[in-house]
């Protein structure tokens, strides 16, 4: 299956020009670098979104109108409702501090009416309608708001960015394929005389293709290694700076072990893709001739 990868010295002499010359290694290196950094960003976003979702899943806020004295009754109703795991009132001081960020000193003005808030953590299979009805019975006018509902626009934006990252990776793979096709055709043109002689004395298309496939595979491998090393360095650099901040926000590293495996597989996948595309391009070009 991989016999073509191990050429004899005589076979290697058939396609001169030295290793790692021409545009292929550079194109593959740039593409590998870009793909790995974009993929890392996409994976980090995905992990961040996962953490956010994990943090807000099954969490709700109960808003009790300002000036109402229903907070103790609402809290008691919430705690006694089936499926409610925790129910905690948000201290008014915390809420005013949050408001201060938006409104300035007016946020802490005692004259400003502030609703009471209870945060609920409910079981996954809890009957939300029953809980809401029970709380509203205890505190008329109380509003039941899912945290997810509030953060949905942000999550939607993250999902769009994830898809964008995935599309960019796919586009770069397509661009790499196109570059490899051009490189393969260029190589065929350069070595046309050799190919004609080889065909003339009985070489099969597969024999000729193997020579080019091997050359492009090795060039791609060299480019992929260079691109991967550069991308790893950049990601490490970011890990010491920017992503440390992201890590602080998320409480852990934005990339997991599985992500590093995926990022490591990416350059190899690109080499496999480039080699397969080169083989198809060379075979197809040879078959169009004569």
């Amino acid at each position, binding site marked *: 299956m991989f016999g073509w990868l191990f050429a*004899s010295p*005589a*076979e290697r*002499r*058939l396609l*001169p020009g030295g290793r790692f010359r021409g545009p292929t290694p550079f194109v593959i290196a740039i593409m590998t670098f870009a793909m790995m950094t974009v993929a890392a960003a996409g994976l980090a976003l995905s992990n961040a979104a996962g953490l956010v979702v994990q943090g807000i899943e099954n969490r709700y806020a109960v808003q009790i109108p300002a000036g109402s004295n229903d907070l103790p009754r609402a809290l008691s109703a919430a705690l006694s409702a089936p499926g409610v795991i925790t129910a905690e009132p948000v201290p008014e001081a915390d809420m005013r501090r949050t408001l201060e960020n938006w409104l300035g000193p007016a946020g802490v003005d005692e004259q400003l009416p502030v609703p009471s808030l209870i945060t609920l953590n409910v079981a996954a299979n809890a009957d939300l309608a029953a809980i809401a009805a029970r709380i509203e019975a205890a505190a008329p006018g109380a509003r039941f708001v899912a945290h997810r509902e509030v953060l949905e626009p942000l999550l939607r934006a993250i999902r769009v960015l994830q898809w964008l990252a995935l599309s960019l990776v796919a586009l770069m793979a397509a661009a790499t394929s196109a570059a490899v096709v051009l490189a393969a055709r260029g190589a065929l043109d350069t070595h046309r*005389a*050799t190919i*004609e*002689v*080889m*065909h*003339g*004395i*009985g*070489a*099969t*298309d597969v*024999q000729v293709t193997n020579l080019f496939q091997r050359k492009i595979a090795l060039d791609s491998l060299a480019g992929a290694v260079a691109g991967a090393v550069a991308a790893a360095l950049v990601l490490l650099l970011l890990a010491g700076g920017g992503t440390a901040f992201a890590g602080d926000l998320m409480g852990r590293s934005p990339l997991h072990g599985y992500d590093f495996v995926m990022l490591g597989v990416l350059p190899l996948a690109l080499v496999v893709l480039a080699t397969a595309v080169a083989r198809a391009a060379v075979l197809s070009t040879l*078959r169009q001739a*004569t």
Partner: protein
Amino acid sequence: MCGHWQGGWGCARSDPQAGREQALSAIVEFDSVGLRYGTGAEVLRDLDFRLNRGAFYFLTGPSGAGKTSLLKLLYLAQRPTRGRIRLFGEEMSDAPRDVLPHFRRRIGVVFQDFRLIRHLSAFDNVALPLRIAGKSEIGVEGPVREMLAWVGLADRASARPATLSGGEQQRVAIARAVISQPELLVADEPTGNVDKDMAERLMNLFSALNRLGTTVVVATHDVGLIASTPGAQMVRLEHGSMVDTMGTLKNPPPSPHSQPRGHS
């Protein structure tokens, strides 16, 4: 003769009866063959002849008569635009592309412009057909050295074509064409760039090959060459058509050279 060629040529066909049958059968059959390039006029038209296995043919004709085009059909570099070609008893006109290499390996070709691979040494150029046929490096070394010695280039084995004279390049091209002892040898002006002595040596090589059973087709303008090869038959082309004044083309007489392989 077999002994001389043991290194790479061998004496594969040792059955006398089979050899005689082979000698009498046609190796090439053209049936109303025409060839045109693109939308131009036909460069070859209504070619209708057969070449017997083991015979020696000279293909002659003025420049532009279609000799090189005919040779291209013979060594499967072109397909006819009409008519049928049978080679080695197999229909070739519309044979699938994938089977052609198998037949090309049975044909040795000396191109008019040599077509040596310029970045390969003389050794590697001559070794190419054996390597393409899948011979191991151990099986390549001896025959190639022997062949280079025979064409007088033993000491130029590592030289690249650009450093060889025209005559030396010609001899490398001939060595490459005959190294795998082809059943059919097609040569386009093979002695055009060599001196008289070397031309004679090369023709002796072709004759030796012919005696071993190889059918030889040589395109040439050199009348002296034709005269010095007794028993060879002449095929003449003019304006893309056969000129068969001697009546030798459709049913040529057996060549004195057409002995079965191994009985030279």
